[in-house]
Structure formats: C-alpha cells, structure tokens
C-alpha cells in the first residue's frame, strides 16, 4: 500500500476507535456489547445514558467535526492561504452574532435561520469589499479579521447587556459545546451534512483545478470565480447549521487542512481525509473535555487550546503561512 492510503486507514481506524471510546467511557463505563444492544433497540438498564446523552453527543460531534474539517479545507484551497478559514475571517462569528441576537430577543427556535443569515451576510460583505481588488486573497484575510473584530465588539456589547444568569450559558455556547447535544437535532444535521458534503465530494475534482491558481485555471477556460463562489456558499451554509447547533467551535476548520497536508506526501486532493481528521480532532477534544478536565469545559476550549500553539507553530515554521 502507498503511504497516503496507509495514513488514511490509520485516521479512519482512530476515528472508529474514538467513536467507540466516547460511547463507552464516561462517568459510567459501559461495555461495548451493552452500547451496541441498546442502539439496535433492545432495552437495557442504561438506555437513557446511551440513547439520550452519549449517542447524540457522538453523532453531532462527528457530523460537526467532519463538516468543519471539510469546510476549512475547501476555504484554504480556494483562497490559497491557511489563514483563510471561516472561523478566522469572521464568517463564523457573523453566524454567532445573529444566533445570540436570536437568543436575546427570545427566538431561540429560529437559531438555524439566524445563524445562516448572519454567516451569509458577513460573507457577502467580505466578497463585495475584496472582489477583483489587487492582492485579493491577502486583503480578504485582513478585512475578514477586521470584520471579525467588529462583530466581536457587537457581541461583547450584547453579552454585557445580558442578564447575569444567562451569561454562563451564552458564553459556553459561544465557546462551542457538545454538552447540550440533543437527539432531536441529529436527523436534520445529518441530512444537511450528507446533502452538502455529497455535492462537495462530487465537485471535488474542480478543487485541483482551482489550486493551480486563478490565472492558469482561467486559461483552461473555467470561470474560476463562479466556481469559487459556489464552493464558498456551500461551505458557509453547512457551517452555519453546525455552528447554530453547537456554537462556534474554535480551530478545527483551520487545523485540518495543514495537518493533512503535512501528513500526505504529495500535493493532491485530500477532502475526505480532512473531514475525517476534523471528526477525529473533535471527538478526541470532547473526550478530553468531558473526562480529563475539571468542571465540564466546553469542547471549543480544548480545540482552541490545540489550535493556539499550532497557529504559532505555523507562524514560526519554515513552510508556514505563505504570504
């Protein structure tokens, strides 16, 4: 087997392993057969723990991780920079802002729609500001960071106006948490994720073309901007749904691409691997957050802590951030 295939296999096996670990280990350790029997419908003594708590948590974690990994990977590819991930350029926080507004005015049940509107709103603004500018992609990152700051200022304002007893909840949501994963969220998230990721996988060959750079792809007769917009739009919609349900989970979108790229030997298209890596990182982080840290930290804190040194490493490494 080739190196790339072996690595893919290892990631896949680790992913399965952590699905099993997260289902079986917790405050109460259960056996694998017990979990399996419960999930296929037999009634056992730990039905509630497994069906209502652990299964949705693992499922939502898995779906979110995969989506974030794929989304970040695509953004980094189409905008030619590892910093161009939706969480760094403010798209995710646009969604968060609108979601918090939804909570603030008491429309919690419309979180999805609000998050979607917010993310699309920010993406449109970034697009309008940088389209066909000179040094478009570099400027996009800086402008995105500016928008991120702006949105965060508005967010802090809302947070300060909030009743103190709402605060911890909202703050925890804002850090990204699986603590409130609900079984009822699983089907809709699963459907959306399968649908959008399906389209992305079908279209993934075009990513290779995009990677060549704008000018080369243009000469091959492709309308590169249109393709990029379609890709970006799909990712924005996907991640808006994810972040509405579990909050803006830090770093995963931005981490997966570079990790996969450094593991794989050749340049190529590693969309699926990036997705699996996203799922893996999220499940591991959730395991750490749930079992190894005191007072039930939100998983976003753990991913943020993983992301921080990696971001610095990326800065200081030789290959690093290609400006």
């Amino acid at each position, binding site marked *: 087997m080739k190196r790339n295939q072996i690595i893919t296999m290892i990631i896949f096996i680790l992913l399965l392993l952590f699905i099993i670990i997260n289902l079986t280990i917790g405050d109460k350790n259960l056996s694998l057969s017990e979990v399996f029997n419960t999930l296929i419908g037999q009634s056992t003594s730990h039905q509630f723990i497994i069906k209502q708590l652990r299964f949705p948590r693992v499922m939502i974690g898995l779906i979110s991780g995969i989506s974030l990994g794929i989304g970040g990977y695509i953004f980094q590819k189409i905008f030619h920079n590892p*910093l161009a991930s939706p969480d*760094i350029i403010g798209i995710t926080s646009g969604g968060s802002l609108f979601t918090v507004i939804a909570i603030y005015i008491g429309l919690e049940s419309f979180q999805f729609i609000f998050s979607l509107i917010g993310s699309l709103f920010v993406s449109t603004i970034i697009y309008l*500001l*940088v389209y066909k*500018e*000179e*040094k478009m992609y*570099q*400027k996009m*990152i*800086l*402008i995105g*960071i*500016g*928008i991120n*700051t*702006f949105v*965060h*200022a*508005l967010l*802090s*304002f809302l*947070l*300060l*106006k909030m009743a*103190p007893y709402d*605060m*911890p909840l909202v*703050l*925890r949501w804002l*850090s990204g948490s699986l603590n409130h994963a609900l079984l009822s969220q699983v089907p809709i998230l699963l459907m959306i994720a399968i649908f959008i990721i399906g389209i992305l996988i079908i279209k993934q060959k075009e990513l290779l073309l995009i990677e060549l750079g704008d000018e080369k792809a243009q000469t091959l007769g492709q309308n590169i901007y249109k393709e990029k917009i379609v890709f970006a739009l799909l990712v924005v919609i996907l991640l808006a749904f994810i972040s509405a349900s579990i909050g803006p989970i*830090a*770093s995963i979108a931005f981490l997966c691409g570079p990790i996969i790229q450094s593991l794989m030997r050749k340049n190529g298209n590693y969309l699926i691997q990036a997705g699996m890596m996203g799922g893996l990182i999220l499940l591991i982080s959730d395991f750490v957050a749930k079992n190894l840290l*005191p*007072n039930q*930290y*939100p998983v976003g*804190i753990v991913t*943020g*802590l993983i*992301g*921080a*040194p990696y*971001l*610095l490493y*990326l*800065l*200081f490494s030789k290959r*690093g*951030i290609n*400006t």
Partner: protein
Amino acid sequence: MLSLQEIIRSLTTNNFNTTIIQIRIPRILFAIIAGSSLSISGYIMQKVTRNPISDASILGINAGASLFVIIGLTFFHLSSKHMYILFGLLGGIFAAICVYLFAYIKKDYTPLTITLAGMAVSISFMAVVNTLMLSNNQVMEQFRFWQVGSLGGMNYTILLLFIPYYIIGLFLSFSYAKKIDMLALGDEYANALGINVKITKLILIFISVLLSVIVTALAGPIGFMGLMVPHIVSIFKSQNAFKTILLTGLTGSILLVIFDTLARVVLSPQEIEVGIFTSSIGALIFIYVVKKYRGGLS
C-alpha cells in the same frame, strides 16, 4: 443632564450635583490622557514597523496584556492596580517579542506579514484567556467588564496611579522624536547619521507598549485608537515627528472624550462601554485602510 451654570456652581459649592460632577471629572480626565497615550503608542508603532496597519490591539499586545492579567487574576489573586499594570506590561512585552521574533525568523518585515503575525498571536492568546476565564465564575465576572474596555469605574486614585507612567511615556516619546525622523529616512541613512537602529527601534517599541499597556491594564483594551488617530492626523501632512506626536496626542484626547461621551449617551440610560465603541468604529477604519492600501502588501 446638567447645565454649564450648574456645573460651575457645583464646583464651588456643595450639593447633589457635586457628586455627579465628581464622578464625571476623573472619567473625562482619564479619557483625555488615555486617548493621547493610545494614539501616540499607535503612531510610534506604525513608524517603527513601517506599517500603516498596526497598533497595540492589532499586534497582539492587548491580547498579551489580557493573558497575563487573567493569569494574575486566576493564579496570583491580583488585587492592586499596580499589579495589573505590571502584569499587563509583561504580557504586552511578551506579545511584542513573539511578533518580532516571527518577523525576524522569516526575515520579512512587510506590513501584511507583521499584521498577520500579530493577529495570530492575538488569536492564540485569547484561546488561553477564554480557557482561564471559564474556569472560575468569579474571575469571569471580574474579567468580563475589564475585557471590554470601560471608563465607567474611573476615580482619582486610578488617575493618580496612571499619571507617572503617562508622563514617563510622553517624555520618552518626545525625546525620541528626532530619532523617529531619522529612522523614517531608512535604516541605512539612520545608521549613517550615527544612531543604533536596532536599539532605537527596541526602545521605541518599549515606549509604545508602555503607553498602550498602562491604559489597557487600568481600563481594559480600548481597541484601535492607535490605528485610527495617526491616519486621521496624516491629513495634516506634518513631516516632523515632534509635531506629529503632539497632534496625534491632542487628536486622540479629543476623540476619546467624544467617543466616551457618545458611548455614555447614545443609548442612555444604558451605557455602551467605550472599548466596544472604539473597536467597532476602529474595525471599520481598519477595513477601510486595508482596502485602500496599495504597494508592498506582501
């Protein structure tokens, strides 16, 4: 709302309005010196890094200060404001070293690289800040007001604490004005004129960090003042650093007083924290500057 007459009367006599005035005066005074402090800091930073897109919040210095202050709150139970300043200063210097080190390793001092480095340092530090903040509800409560930047709690004690550092910072900036002019000619010219470029730059960065971190430590991060004001002052096309520092300081004072007043009255009786106000306006200006920026972006 008080009339001017009432204000003058209450300064000389003693009535209910006196209390209101006594709360407002230190606040305005603080806004005046904080505004100039932050703006001059930004001006120096932009000159040293030759980067129009920089100030203490962009280069991660505020994040560094936040990080060290929250470490202090969580592990060393900071109580005195002096310790806030000390920790903030250490954090700011630490962040500046990180950014500088990055540019040094890359041998790349272009605006985009330095700005991205600052942002990355900022994001990483804030991740740790968030972790520590959530660990403890009491720290969270203390910190969330500090973190947005507010002049609401100003009093004469804090003001008096601030002034010595401010004077040192101001004195240093004015006395280094000539060297800023020389550096503007380019490193080689400056060398030929007999100044040690590296050491001068380090000292200037230290002055800039000092000026912004004292404000951050006492009032929380009041973002983007340092970015905005030098750009506004550049309208005057002053070539002389001494004059520019003076203009920058004055403009910064006026602007922060205006912002703080607006923040206080726009949604009255609610109050917007001035840090939120400046960083929302500043972020828009930041976007504008980036968009307009031509030339050696990478």
